[in-house]
């Protein structure tokens, strides 16, 4: 019983870690590729065009 609890909470924290990594990654991609906040569009302009993100 104890072993099972430890195993399942380990699996749960793995899933939480994977979800955290994916959300963090998507947030960084959004900032680099989509965000128009502040001067983001101007700074990111060339790399967005060159990476093929829709820009204007």
């Amino acid at each position, binding site marked *: 019983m104890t072993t099972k609890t430890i195993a399942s909470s380990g699996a749960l924290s793995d899933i939480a*870690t*994977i979800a955290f990594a994916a959300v963090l990654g*998507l947030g960084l991609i959004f900032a680099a590729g989509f965000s128009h906040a502040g001067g983001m569009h101007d700074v990111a302009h060339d790399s967005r065009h060159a990476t093929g993100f829709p820009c204007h």
Partner: protein
Amino acid sequence: MLKQIGASALFAGLAAGVLAALLQLWFVVPLLLEAELYESGARAHFTDGYVGSDAGAPPLGDALGRHMGTLAINIVGWIGFGFVLAAGFALAARRGVAVDARRGLLWGLGGFTAVALAPSFGLPPELPGTVAAEITERQTWWAFTVVATALGLALMAFGRGPAWLAGGIAMIAAPHLIGAPHLDRYFGAAAPELAALFSTRALGVSAAAWAFLGLAAGWIWSREAQRA
């Protein structure tokens, strides 16, 4: 797990971002700067007495601050791609699939297909000055296409049996059957040769950077797995 994901994403993403920025500055940004000459009207195409238009880009050195921005944004974006890729490695590991440098390369090529090739099939990388459909419509179609292609590839790679394969193909095809948002007129001001070369170079640089990201992230992932 977190350390393994973090090490793969950060180191491979940082290196891939620097590589992508250098390749962009060498091969793509000069075409972008040249296109801005058409966008601003400094150069024109098909004017009276047309005998072709000059070719040649302004020097990169005139806008160093601007190119530092390109480097910084590439690093941020590619670390982001690195985190999503490493999250995929971790999901695969839970299903008993080990990732090393060679398998990482395949993941990277899958990333290129999902994030660069598939959306470019409907919305080619845009030369500055391109007049196109509403930005939010294009961003929506772009994001939908990236997600559908990534899920479709995952179904084909990890699904068991022909039904999963067919489902994967359907997901990859769906955005193109729906169709990307386009205008009903052409507005291009720049030379078509320039726009074509820009699109193919942008795709080529993405392919190189994705291949490198997958290879490097897979290599770091397998090293961290051996240590753990």
